Every structure is written in C-alpha cells, then in structure tokens.
C-alpha cells in the first residue's frame, strides 16, 4: 500500500484538467488495486491515487502473466509456434490463430483456399461473439449486475460446443493451420451454426433487456470513461473503444483480410466515446457478426481446405506485418524471417496492451467505481497484455 505513484502524469500533453482542489484538503489516499482483485480481470495491478473517492492518477503494473511468448517464438518453428498464440488472448484464441496464420502465409506468399477462408471467417466471428459475450458478462458483473454473466455464459457455451466439435478444444482451439485449416467441417457443422444463428438474436435481446434501458446501468455508464477520437488515435486505441468514439474504422473494412471483403456488414459506431457507447457498439457488433456468419454459412463453397504448404516451412528472408480486427482491437503480427525454419522475430501487437494505456486518461477525475467500469469496458485480457 505504500507504493508511491510516479509524479509525472503519463500523457502530459493530452491536457488533463487538474482535479479541483478543495479548500479543506483531505489526505490523498493511495490504494493498490490488484494484482488479485475481483474486478481487474486477471492479474492487473492498478495503483490509484485518490482524493476521497476521486481518482487523481493511476499507474498500471503489469507483467504478472508474462510468459515470453515472443521469445518462445524465436525458438520454435513456424508451425510449432502456432498453438502458443492461442494462449495470449485466451478468450479469442481463434482470432489470434487467424492473425498468426495469415501473417506467416503472407511471408510464405501463399494463400488459403476459399473454403478454408470461409471456415476461418465463421469460426473467427463466432469467437468474436464469444469474446464479446464474456466481456458483457464480466463487465456487467463489475458494475454489479450479476445475472447477465450467467446468460452470456450459457450462450457462449453453444459457441464453445461448436469449437469443440470442430477441433476438439473449447478455449485454446488451435483451429487453423498455416495455409488453411487442418480439419474439414464436421457433419452437421452448418446445421449447428444455423441453429445457433437462430437462437442467439433473441438471447442478445435478452441481455439488452436487462441492461440497455436499465436506469442504473445507464447512469453508471453514461459519461464514464470518456475518450475522444483524437485521444484514441494518439494513444493507439483500437477496436470497439475507437469505434465508440465515433471513428468508423474496422480493419475488416479498411484493410480487408481473409475474405471479409465478400461480406456485407456494417461498422457500428458510437458518438460520445463513453462506456455506454462502447457497450452499445459491442452489442451491435455481436449482431453484425451474426450477419457475417449467416452470409458465410450460406455461401460457403466446396473445395480444398489446405493450400500446398511445404512440410518444412522456410519463408524467404524478409519481414511482414499483418494485422486483423480481433474482438479487442487491432491484433498485429510482425514476423521477421531469416530464411530458416524458425522465425527470427515475432512481435505481437496486442490490442489489450495498447488499449490499457488509455486507462489513465479515461479515469482521471472520475470515481473509484468508474475505474472498475472502465477496466471492464476496455475489455482487456491479461494473457494478451503480458504475453
């Protein structure tokens, strides 16, 4: 508890208004939130400097879950490293795999066959839905609403069942391989997905019924953790947080990967950039994901699911940066090859890590309870922050 917060405000030129000083100055309180705290979504430690309940500054201490993923990559072959990426953002493992596989494919200059791309899109979007559902449940729980957690976990279960049927794993799926997909869809895959598409929209309505117009929910989230579009860009914040601030930017549209350019979907955006808008953006994103999945299931072509990939992958010397729109923002892989079987360097650009940096800007001058709401709304996964 005795830790001193660093004096320097982190982002000094973002013009943070000095919090009002009261005439009768109370003692400033330094509180250590985490690393084991029910609302920090893992092992995040936030040191809060408080004036009463008002936050004067924060400092994040991270790294408790650091496993040296990037170092591991340098000592594994391209194929062997593939399962490791699932362990970063473990609630959206499929997205991680997609990003890595596409980055290496680009380095190898090969392309996955169309059917594989469709399978990838379906699974990735399902995973986005699952990730958002998990976010919604935990975020609502942080703000004090218990019930949505159970509703979202019930429906997330259906997605995980599809994953399990497809590749045998529920969480760390390792669903994709470099060059395509390892597994052909199982019998009844389309039926399962279609069934899921039919029953989930009413369930999303159900979540919204509990929260969207709930007075307390609106009061707890409106004008909380506001961040402007300019600040978002300056801080490199991406994903739903950026979109909630009004920037219509989604890598799926801006720099399409896989075969997202073939699908018709919209980018939901917010106006105020507050927690409520981020909530609404993610809720709409869930619906858009369903839309993409429906199109993909209907249009999925027959054909091979694996491109011709050499047994021993030796990408030519070179480097490539490839990023995808993960549920949490821009997930990028910067892969450097020295021509050997092992990547010379794999740099992961983790959305959670970069987004977490905005926490300080978002909570200054707000109350302790808002810190919880903002940590929730940033949708961080500490496995990805710390890697």
């Amino acid at each position, binding site marked *: 508890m005795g830790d001193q917060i660093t004096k320097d405000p982190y982002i000094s030129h973002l013009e943070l208004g000095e919090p*009002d*000083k*009261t*005439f*009768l100055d*109370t*003692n400033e309180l330094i509180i250590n939130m985490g690393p084991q705290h029910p609302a920090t979504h893992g092992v995040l430690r936030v040191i809060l400097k408080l004036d009463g309940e008002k936050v004067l500054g924060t400092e994040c201490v991270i790294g408790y879950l650091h496993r040296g993923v990037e170092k591991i990559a340098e000592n594994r072959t391209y194929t062997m490293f593939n399962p490791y990426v699932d362990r970063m953002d473990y609630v959206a493992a499929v997205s991680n795999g997609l990003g890595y596989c596409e980055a290496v494919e680009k380095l190898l200059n090969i392309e996955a066959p169309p059917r594989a791309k469709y399978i990838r899109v379906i699974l990735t979007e399902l995973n986005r839905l699952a990730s958002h559902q998990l976010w919604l449940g935990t975020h609502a729980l942080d703000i004090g609403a218990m019930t949505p957690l159970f509703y979202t976990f019930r429906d997330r279960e259906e997605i995980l069942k599809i994953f399990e049927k497809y590749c045998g794993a529920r969480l760390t799926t390792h669903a994709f391989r470099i060059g395509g997909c390892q597994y052909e869809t199982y019998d009844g895959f389309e039926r399962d997905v279609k069934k899921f598409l039919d029953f989930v929209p009413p369930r999303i309505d159900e979540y919204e019924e509990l929260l969207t117009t709930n007075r307390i929910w609106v009061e707890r989230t409106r004008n909380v953790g506001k961040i402007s579009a300019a600040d978002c860009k300056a801080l490199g914040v991406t994903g739903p947080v950026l979109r909630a601030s009004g920037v219509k930017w989604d890598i799926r549209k801006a720099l399409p990967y896989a075969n997202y350019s073939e699908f018709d979907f919209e980018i939901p955006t917010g106006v105020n950039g507050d927690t409520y808008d981020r909530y609404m953006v993610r809720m709409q994103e869930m619906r858009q994901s369903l839309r993409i999945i429906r199109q993909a299931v209907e249009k999925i072509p027959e054909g091979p699911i694996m491109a011709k990939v050499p047994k021993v992958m030796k990408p030519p010397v070179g480097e490539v940066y490839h990023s995808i729109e993960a549920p949490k923002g821009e997930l990028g892989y910067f892969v450097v090859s020295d021509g050997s079987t092992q990547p010379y360097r794999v740099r992961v650009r983790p959305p959670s890590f970069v987004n977490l940096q905005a926490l300080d800007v978002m909570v200054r001058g707000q109350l302790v309870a808002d810190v919880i709401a903002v940590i929730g709304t940033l949708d961080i996964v500490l496995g990805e922050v710390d890697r």
Partner: protein
Amino acid sequence: MAPVATTFFFYFLSGLTLLSGILVITRKNPVHSALALILGLLAQAGLYLMLYAPFVAGVQIILYAGGIMVLFLFVIMLVNIERSQKEEQFNKQWLVGILAAVALGGLFVLVYTKGTGLFPQAVSIPAESNNTQQIGELLYGQYMFAFEIASLLLLVAIIGAVVMAKKRI
C-alpha cells in the same frame, strides 16, 4: 407497565455514564474515546427512559448515538490517527481543570445539602402514552421561539460549514 428494579437500573446506568465519561477523557486513541462517549449517551438514554421521557430517549439514540457520533467517528478516522496518538494528550490546563472541578463539586454539595427542595416536585407522574404529544405541544407552543432560534443557529452552522468546505458554490 410497572417499573421493575428501578433502583438497580438507576445506579447501573449512572455508573455506566460515569465510567464512560472517565473513559472518554483517559483513552489515548480518539476512536476509543468516541466509542466510550457513545456508551455514555446510550446510558443517558436509559436514564431518560427511567424519567418517563421515552421520546427524548429515542431521539437521544437516533440523533446522538446513531447520527452525530457517527460523524464524529468519521472525522476522527479521516485525521491522521497515528500522529495524534503519539502526541501528548493532556495540555497544560491544570488550573482551569481544577477550578472547574471545584466549582462543580461545590454545586453538588449545595444540591446535596439543600436536598430536593431546590426543584419543583413533579405533581404527578406524566402519562407515558402521550409523552410525545406533550413534547410536541411544548416545543411548538410554549417554547416556539427558543425552538426556532435553535434551528436558525443550526442553519447558520450548516451554511458556514458549506462555505468553509467548498471554494466555489
């Protein structure tokens, strides 16, 4: 309801009041002092009950024990206790203290020697059931002016506190 063991309760509550009073001024930790004070206030509430003044007793508990003392504790907790604990608690006011004690003692002796004749004897034990009503009638009838003055004083105090605590209003 017939009174039960009146003498016992009187001495018990009086002793409790005295004991808590002593604790209030001897404890080094201000929180302990405040807690002792609460005990004293509760004991006083009991004494009021014995005087057939249940309304005053109830108000004593609600306002003093439940409200004001909590605010006391609030303030005590916010100041730095470690520091005030180490400081010398008793300041150099022995003379004033002794004078006050002598004066109070003289008063007690006077009351004791003059006996109950000093106070008007209650004509009858007031009916317990409409005690509240009587207090209300007195407050808003006979003592209206004093009552309003008191509330005005409190209002001034509230405004003063707000002005002091807040730079901008």
